[in-house]
């Protein structure tokens, strides 16, 4: 059967002396391949790499050439154990046919290597960037220290995309959230320098308004409308959730306003800390109540000021 493997001229020219295995020796699982003369016994679905080849070859039922040919690819990939490799190499010394098979296989493998080298030339330089592949914006992030703990800052080409209090949100959660908003996230401290500078000035009481665009990509329309309203609350002033709800034309939505502010991706720059409960209590904050208190403290908003603001808002609504 091996004679069918190669063109007739090749098989006859190589001085091959081994005899084909009689069909009676083929086990039943091989039969399906025997209908096809070009299938090799190596390809029976035994799967695992054969071993103990010398012992198998010693059994009179097995043609050593079948064994050798079946494991040639395993030999060139280095998958055989030492004893089996030695046996196959020893066999190819005595058998021209198998020597030629091995030789051809090695040539095919080096041709494959060359093809791979060709097609991979400069692959690292040619590889398209993830930004190009995905067609989505990049967000570059960096870190800063602040009176309210470590802060992660991220910006896209459009503006600030994320300010995250790391004592409250983990760095990974913040960054993965950014990915889920549809940004490719890279660490680039130098790209967030302007944001860091202005935030430092704010914390040092040297800045009351921010000269920074923000980028609310991946934020729902309702949340966006709440945030775009909140950004107009001036430094040192507070409004209630109800007032913000009224301002966006949904006076009954103060709870939803609270939820939307909780999703503010750029606190401080969008001052959601300036929105309080109608009782005058601070209410919830994305970085925790201590930070809200600290920020209002920086801006000089006392408890009394909050209370009177709340009273005023009730008066207006009343």
């Amino acid at each position: 059967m091996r004679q069918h493997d190669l063109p007739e001229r090749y098989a006859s020219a190589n001085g091959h002396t081994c005899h084909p295995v009689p069909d009676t020796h083929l086990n039943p699982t091989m039969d399906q391949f025997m209908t096809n003369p070009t299938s090799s016994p190596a390809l029976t679905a035994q799967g695992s790499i054969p071993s103990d080849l010398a012992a198998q070859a010693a059994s009179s039922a097995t043609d050593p050439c079948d064994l050798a040919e079946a494991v040639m690819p395993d030999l060139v990939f280095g998958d055989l154990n030492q004893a089996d490799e030695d046996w196959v190499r020893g066999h190819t010394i005595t058998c021209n046919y198998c020597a030629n098979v091995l030789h051809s296989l090695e040539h095919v493998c080096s041709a494959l290597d060359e093809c791979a080298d060709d097609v991979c030339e400069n692959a690292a330089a040619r590889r398209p960037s993830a930004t190009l592949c995905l067609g989505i914006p990049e967000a570059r992030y960096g870190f800063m220290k602040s009176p309210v703990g470590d802060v992660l800052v991220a910006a896209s080409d459009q503006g600030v995309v994320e300010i995250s209090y790391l004592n409250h949100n983990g760095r990974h959660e913040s960054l993965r959230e950014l990915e889920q908003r549809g940004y490719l996230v890279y660490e680039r401290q130098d790209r967030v320098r302007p944001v860091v500078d202005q935030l430092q000035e704010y914390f040092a009481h040297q800045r009351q308004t921010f000269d920074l665009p923000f980028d609310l990509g991946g934020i729902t329309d309702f949340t966006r409308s709440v945030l775009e309203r909140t950004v107009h609350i001036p430094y040192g002033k507070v409004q209630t959730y109800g007032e913000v709800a009224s301002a966006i034309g949904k006076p009954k939505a103060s709870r939803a306003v609270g939820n939307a502010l909780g999703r503010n991706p750029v606190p401080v720059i969008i001052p959601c800390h300036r929105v309080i409960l109608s009782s005058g209590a601070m209410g919830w904050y994305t970085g925790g109540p201590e930070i809200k208190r600290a920020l209002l403290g920086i801006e000089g908003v006392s408890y009394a000021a909050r209370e009177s603001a709340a009273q005023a808002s009730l008066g207006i609504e009343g």
Partner: protein
Amino acid sequence: MDAGWDRVSEGNRFVSDLSLPLEPASRGAPIPTSSDTATPVSDPDHCLFTSMIERFGDEIYRFACQLTGNGADADDLYQETLLKAFRAYAKLPTDANHRAWLYRICSNTFISDRRKHGRVSPMNDVMAATLSDHAPDQARALDARDLLRDVERFVDALPPKQRVALVLRKHHEYGYADIADVLNSSEAAARANVHEALTKLRGAFSHRMEV
């Protein structure tokens, strides 16, 4: 000759283009975990998509080049792989083996693209062309570039699963268990795919290799 081997491949569950290797529970294949990899995860932001691409992008791109055999198709395959990966990434457990996962997406995309768009020249035609175009005496005159081009053409006509298996074993040091994992097949079928591809190549080109 292909029929028998296609049966072997088809016997295994075919991973469709749309079902990413994300929902392996339904197909019984576990998501590989990072304990499978030798490289420890040192990057603190290894859970980020961009970090994953920085780590594995180059080898996945080379994989795409080797599968497609040309730069333009490689770019398309790589881009499609990244798009699918990005969409599914949020749901991937952080301890998953991201490398194996990317290889699987890339392989599945390649295989299903080939099944959808097919190949103009079936194996037998390519084989016939390779064998008849150049009689043995002419073969000596052909330079190495022609041979490589023909080998590339022949590899391009291999059944996609065989090509994936061959490239993984030959150029990415994948063992058969790992290839089986990528192809969602048995280890036996993985080895059979590699052996079959090599045997075909040897049969087609042995007369043109300097002996």
